[in-house]
């Protein structure tokens, strides 16, 4: 287990436990956190689990993991930033325990 904090556009913070090997998109869905939709379920077929990794975690989390993730981020509804990731592609492991992600204004 590791902790992930989701920060909403209104500044609200929700911290939940995410199992190791589980991804940050699912952590939001299992805990009914608004702002992550994840409509394709982690199949790299939509861009509705877009998040901004907090600057303090950006180095550890890294940049998009694949060409597909990179291309889909270009199609995301909210503006893409240097720290943009698809949260389904961020997998919980001890190195990112405590991760903070910011949710975009919209996923569509």
């Amino acid at each position: 287990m590791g902790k992930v904090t989701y920060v909403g556009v209104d500044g609200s913070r929700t911290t939940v436990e995410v199992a190791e090997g589980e991804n940050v998109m699912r952590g939001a869905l299992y805990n009914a956190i608004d702002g992550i939709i994840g409509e394709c379920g982690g199949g790299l077929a939509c861009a509705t689990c877009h998040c901004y990794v907090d600057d303090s975690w950006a180095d550890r989390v890294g940049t998009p993991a694949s060409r597909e993730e990179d291309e889909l981020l270009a199609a995301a509804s909210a503006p893409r930033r240097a720290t943009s990731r698809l949260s389904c592609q961020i997998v919980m492991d001890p190195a990112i325990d405590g991760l903070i992600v910011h949710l975009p204004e919209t996923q569509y």
Partner: protein
Amino acid sequence: MAIDVLNPTPPDFKRVAGRDQVPPHVPEELIHSAGITFGPEFLAAPHAYMAAMHQKFPPLYYDVSPFGNAWLAIKHEDALKVLRNPEVFSNEGATPFPRDPDDYFYFIPQEIDPPQHRKYRNIVDPMFSPQGVLKLEATMRELANELIDEIIANGQCEFTTAFGRPFPVTIFLRLMGLPVEMTDTFVDWAVSLLHSNDRAIMAETMTKISAYLKAAIEEKKRQPDDGVVSRIVHAQIDGRPMHDKEIFGFVIFLFIGGLDTVFATLNNIWLWLANNPDRRREMIADPGNINAQVEELLRVHSVTFSGRTIVKDHEMRGVQLKAGDKITCILPACNFDPEVFPNPTVVDFHRPRQIVLAFTVGVHSCMGAHLARLETKVAIQEWLKRIPDFAVKPGTQIVYRPGGVVGPHHLPLVW
């Protein structure tokens, strides 16, 4: 009407079918009949027909059909809007299968809108997630090879029954924890339900399926196992066990959804592979691009549609949609939208990634999508390894079945 999951009641929407039942707010110039999925032009070549809808019909129009009138959305952009806005475009009453009004149930999670919907999905999503389905990959490859073993020396096969049907249905039934030896019976039921276009046959089939699944559910209550049916039977929702109607509505929905869709998809793809030897060789020569190949083949061979019921008056493309109207997103047509996929009928394995509507979008995106993608990938890889060259048996006339899942009826192959 808000859905009460514990007290299912039939929706009070009126069924509207035929020219004389067009509501007065529909402008005359927007009334057409495309004959999906039964017209001779459609059945001659369904995917080419749906691709050409962008030239033949307005982007949003009112389709009149003996099986039910509805607005048809064929633009990719419009499908995203409809499918992502459940407050206007509800799933209530959107599933066409007849039910006994005195013993009504909801198809779960298909007919449940947010936020309740997510609670049901959370029960089964771990088994259908990309990581979840990967656990099945090794047995999938074994199964593909066993099926190929049985036909390879013959130099020919009827693809639909030798591979297209047993491959995905066996995987699905194992995952559900239902008996694989019942495959033929289950598939016959699915065909009657999805392709008869006859309400009486559909109702009779629903009765048979219901009786079978109710018995299966009782058995899983007594003897839990690690299949999906058992998982649903023993799941909790909002801290309580699920009611019998919830369990039944959930199991029967997965059952109907799992039997016909990948079957039709594989049949479509194999017909294309058989007719396109150069493209087949291109795929074999570029094994690292398999995921993009699968996605592109799913784009041009999508098999199904997404229907919604409009519950609030709404304007789209300057067209007035009224509460009570039905709307159907013609997903295969949306996947040929030239504004999103330039040269849409060209199969291009190097397109930039876009949202392909094969599995719909929005919260009701197909939960079996990852299973379907993996099955398609494994089937293509294992088949092309062992039978790289094949063709449709000379003299064959390809015939499509009418109904809500689009694919060829028979596909005799030779090699």
